[in-house]
């Protein structure tokens, strides 16, 4: 059973040329990375034992590393999510053939483009300082402190509401002062859900490689302006994960 092999796919690229992307260390074994073709589209793949690959740190980083390497050479990369193993090369080519109409549409739109991510997280000290500057909050806090726990129930709720409004106003400031100027340099942008209360921005930008330096610079300008208040988590270059969304369902034949 462990003898059976499958074909793991990493990403799609626009290429008619068979390409050897070297090797990758996958669960302790060295695997060749090769391409499977249909028309001017190709899947970047490796032959691996047929089994379920768990999304542990090592496996996830291998997947990402292969895509990063491909992106060094190829300028049109369509990311595929982690963990997809197919029975044979022929199955992958069949899949590619059926995805081809979408690939054809995507290629010109992502050619030469990369995704970068920016998370902005408020520093706890700064947030605490800021909220205590608000007179209505200070006043309400005093009321809460003076009352017993039960008597102050509704006051605490109101205080919570004020805190929420406070966060919303900061999110708004971050959006207009950081996000909007960056959007001007991007081909497209996407705001993802904020994770946790202190996160003020969670955005992905699709940018042209030619704009990469200018974008980096703009991020640094914004950081310079905000660095005492917030932390930046700036990542990339990624393939356009946040801008490509194709969902496949496989059903068993009857």
């Amino acid at each position, binding site marked *: 059973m462990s003898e059976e092999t499958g074909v793991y796919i990493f990403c799609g690229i626009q290429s008619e040329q068979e390409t050897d992307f070297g090797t990758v260390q996958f669960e302790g074994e060295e695997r060749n990375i090769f391409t499977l073709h249909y028309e001017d589209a190709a899947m970047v793949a490796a032959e691996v034992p047929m089994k379920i690959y768990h999304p542990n740190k090592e496996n*996830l980083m291998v997947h990402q590393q292969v895509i990063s390497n491909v992106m060094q050479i190829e300028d049109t990369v369509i990311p595929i999510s982690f963990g997809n193993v197919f029975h044979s090369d022929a*199955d992958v080519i069949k899949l590619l053939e059926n995805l081809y109409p*979408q690939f054809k549409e995507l290629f010109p739109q992502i050619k030469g483009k990369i995704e970068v991510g920016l998370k902005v997280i408020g520093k706890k000290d700064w947030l605490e300082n800021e909220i205590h500057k608000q007179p209505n909050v200070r006043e309400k806090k005093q009321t809460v402190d003076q009352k017993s726990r039960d008597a102050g129930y509704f006051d605490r709720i109101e205080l919570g509401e004020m805190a929420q409004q406070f966060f919303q106003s900061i999110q708004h400031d971050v959006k207009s002062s950081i996000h909007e100027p960056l959007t001007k340099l991007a081909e497209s942008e996407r705001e993802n859900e904020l994770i946790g209360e202190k996160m003020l921005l969670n955005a992905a930008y699709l940018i042209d490689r030619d704009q990469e330096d200018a974008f980096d610079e703009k991020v640094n300008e914004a950081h310079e302006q905000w660095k005492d208040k917030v932390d930046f988590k700036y990542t990339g270059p990624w393939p356009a994960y*946040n801008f490509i969304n194709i*969902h496949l*369902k*496989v*059903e068993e034949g009857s």
Partner: protein
Amino acid sequence: MAVQKSTDSSSLAEVIDRILDKGIVIDAYARVSVVGIELITVEARVVVASVDTWLRYAEAVGLLRDEVEEEGLGGRLAEDSQSNERSQLSI
């Protein structure tokens, strides 16, 4: 520059954020039973577009939550779902 971007292992959370359920996503069921499949239903919802002509399609429903080892990834479920192009094909 003070802020440098990277995709290395220090940004594992960022990697997870992307590679589990973005890009081309193939159903959990498929990963398990990929051997011997005969039929694929392709549900293609979307694509990239530029800022002004953004084709807005649905976000895929969160996948493989039970296999995800790290915590704090939930919460991204289907948003506005629309325009499902379905086609059947044989492998």
